[in-house]
């Protein structure tokens, strides 16, 4: 089975440099040079990160004449946020049930204890 898109997105976001690049792009498009600026890193190294982000569908590279602006594509991020929301809800509810189950279990045991001679 091919890799699901969420896994690809997670892998792209696992690197702190790539996360910082994306955070920068949430404020607007930027050139590779601009994006490289905050990092102690060569342009080729930054380009490698941009390739990963592009392959994951998180950014697009424009084809304007002089430069190729990088732009954020928000929909994979929204998919991640949706999934995290669902998964969090699953655990919230599961733990609610665990809580209830253990409380009842411990209450029954105390009843039992108080009944014994």
């Amino acid at each position, binding site marked *: *089975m091919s*890799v*699901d*898109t*969420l*896994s*690809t*997105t*997670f*892998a792209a*976001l*696992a690197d*702190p440099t790539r*996360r910082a690049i*994306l*955070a920068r792009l*949430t*404020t607007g498009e930027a050139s590779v040079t601009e994006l490289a600026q905050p990092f102690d890193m060569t342009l080729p190294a930054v380009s*490698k990160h941009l390739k*990963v982000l592009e392959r994951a569908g998180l950014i697009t590279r424009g084809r304007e004449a002089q430069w190729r602006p990088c732009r*954020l594509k*928000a929909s994979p*991020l*929204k*998919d*991640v*946020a949706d*999934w*995290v929301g669902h*998964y*969090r*809800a*699953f*655990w919230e*509810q*599961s*733990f*609610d*049930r*665990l*809580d*209830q*189950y*253990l*409380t009842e*279990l*411990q209450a029954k045991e105390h009843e039992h204890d108080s009944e014994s001679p």
Partner: protein
Amino acid sequence: MPQSQSEAAIESVAGEFVFTRVIDASRERVWQAFTESERLMQWWGPAGFTMLAANVDLRPGGAFHYGMRAPDGSEVWGKWVYREIVPPERLTVIASFSDEAADITRHPYSPDWPLELLSTMTLIEHEGRTTVTVQAVPHSATEIERRTFEDARDSMDEGYTGTLDKLAEYLAKV
């Protein structure tokens, strides 16, 4: 998507999903609840779901295979393949959706959702209460990262070999 939501999404990922809850019970109790079939049948699953099955084969490579009936009547099956079992403190599994035959399937609601999650649950007890932490990351993501890391490492090796060759040349001349 508003900027703040994008930023929140980026940070919420940061490689992993983490969820923590404090349970008013000892570690042993919580561990039993997660690893014993009869107990799992009594509490596992979200609100409104009823348990159909909870088969537990508690050993590395074994699995917790469960089935639930959703409020709308449909069946949802899941599987936790055990990787690491350290009672009563840590459980590492590969969690996925499944069918009744225990084969792995896509998520019933969305094909984009992770096929397999590498999840670690840790239990820490303090004064009779247990903090349960669940960390999960899409398993394929870790595989992609590993491959990406290996690709990068391979190209680093090439660069390194080049440098060593030059050093050898230089030393030969001296």
